[in-house]
């Protein structure tokens, strides 16, 4: 086992969100790029600090909503004008004002489904077996602790030298994620 001592990643544990945010900013400045952070609740600005790209979820929602709306309008028009027209007191068959409500509901459904599915796909969930779960104390990431994930393969700072940098960040503890 030649690589037994070489962990997959280091997990820096912090006691509060501000320490994590400060540490993430400093590590990012030091040139680290393969960063991730794990927190019990969303921290404003954390994703930007560790350098995440923008999400396309709003576009998914827009497309899903438009598909629901226009699909719904088309369905109603086809059903009540083309396929099964009923003359009710000579009123117009293509009753657009009446079609709006079902079309609106379908637009909401389409947008919500697209946004949620898009979120799960972008996040790579469901995934029950991520390596980070192997780290000691990672269970506290959903409770009251804040973790910073640093990969030892960073080109800028290789693991043994980088460790000295990491030690100065004020982490409560540094854990290893087993390879």
């Amino acid at each position: 086992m030649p690589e037994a001592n070489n962990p997959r990643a280091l997990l820096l544990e912090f006691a509060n969100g501000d320490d994590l945010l400060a540490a993430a900013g400093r590590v990012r400045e030091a040139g680290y790029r393969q960063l991730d952070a794990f927190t019990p609740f969303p921290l404003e600005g954390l994703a930007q600090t560790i350098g995440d790209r923008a999400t396309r979820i709003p576009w998914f929602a827009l497309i899903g909503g438009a598909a629901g709306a226009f699909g719904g309008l088309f369905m109603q028009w086809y059903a009540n004008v083309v396929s099964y027209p009923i003359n009710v007191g000579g009123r117009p068959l293509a009753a657009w004002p009446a079609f709006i409500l079902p079309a609106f509901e379908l637009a909401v459904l389409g947008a919500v489904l697209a946004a949620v599915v898009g979120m799960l796909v972008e996040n790579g969930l469901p995934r029950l077996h991520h390596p980070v779960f192997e780290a000691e104390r990672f269970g506290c990431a959903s409770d009251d602790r804040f973790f910073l994930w640093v990969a030892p393969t960073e080109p800028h700072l290789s693991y043994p030298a980088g460790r000295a940098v990491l030690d100065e960040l004020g982490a409560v503890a540094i854990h290893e994620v087993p390879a």
Partner: protein
Amino acid sequence: MADERSVNPQAPTETLPLQPYGSVSDQIAMIPLHYPLRRRWLIGLAASALFTLLLVVAIGYLFYAGVGIWGINSPVFWGLAIANYVWWIGLGNAGTLISALLLLLSQQWRNSLNRFAEAMTLFAVFCAAMFPIIHLGRPWFFYWLLPYPNVMALWPQFRSPLVWDVFANVIYLLVSIIFFYIGLIPDLATVRDKARGRLGQVFFGVLSLGWRGSAAHWQRWRRTYRICAALAVPLVVSVHSGVAMLFSVGQLAGWQTTIFPPYFVMGAMFSGFGVVAMIAVVLRHTFRLDSLVTTRHLDLLAKVLLASGLITSYGYIMDAFTAWYSGDPFERSTLIDRFTGAYAWSYWSAVILNFVVLQGLWFEAVRRNPVLLFLIGASVTTGMWFERYMLVVTTLYHDFLPSSWGWYVATFWDWSLLAGTIGLFFFLFFLFVRFLPMISMFEVKEVLREERVEARNARSQ
């Protein structure tokens, strides 16, 4: 302001008493894992299961014998079933509004209330969705209401509010489930990490989809959650407006009025906030959650209840004014019937239970008193049921011609459906309280963090 705060760290503007993040998970996540009140829970579950059984019997007998077992007859073809339906779906609306609308308005106090309010929505909408189906003469054909290509070459009639209602309800139920679940995922992960037994770990692990709280995940999650919330608010308004149009698109005196959609939406919010207030008081007392659901929460809930009640009473006044001002003799006679007719008791019960009792909430001592707030919530919930009854029956029993005047008296089977759905609601709620985190832990922690940051800023000044 800042100095005052630093002197008194628990100034009245703060929602929650400062406490470590861990204490939130300890209080909430431990309830599904090590349920504290097993005996009481079993008794409650059994009692509600009994009423659920009554519901099963009532529906079974209805399917066997037909709607003739109800009190409905010409001219009152809409009886308790429709009143119950409107009542239930109205109760549900408040959960979505408290969760989605207050999220978008950054009202952080909602974070202690939104989870059980959303659960309340789900179960109420579920109870509501039953009534339109069992109210059909031939309920086994209910799927004819859905548009699908079929060999009969039939389509629903989309110009009818009845079909709008099908879309509104089905989609509202689906979106409520999705919204509830998306908001629940991070908390399921917390329960998973707290679980020591294999069963709990697997159950909550699978339900939480392997959530690990990564920064990128949180960012996308939050974006999605806010998008869903922004869509849920107009959805709620459209759902209850659709319900209102079932009435107001009809030609009958007392129903055909343009104020109905907003009047119904406000009434729905009003009654639902009454239920949320009751649930908050009961859960807080039962599980000793005073540090998470504080008297300030009760105070704010009571204020919203008061405000929505006053807007609903404006609806009552304008409804009556419009009927009088129209000069239409049928509108006027329906209005007089509501005040003095055979069903005047339902009108005055609604007015007294909804608006007279409500005035107690002007006093801070009442708003912060859990028992009084519970009683006022119960009064509003009951009052709004009387309102639904009044709206359905008083219009139908006196139609335009004396030949279509008649009575409506609900039968045992009508009442057993109401009691049965209430039992089903409690049954589902007992299961929710037992197996899922009933308060949103991570959102409460967010509030705690902001309060910490504020407190520190105040000190450093």
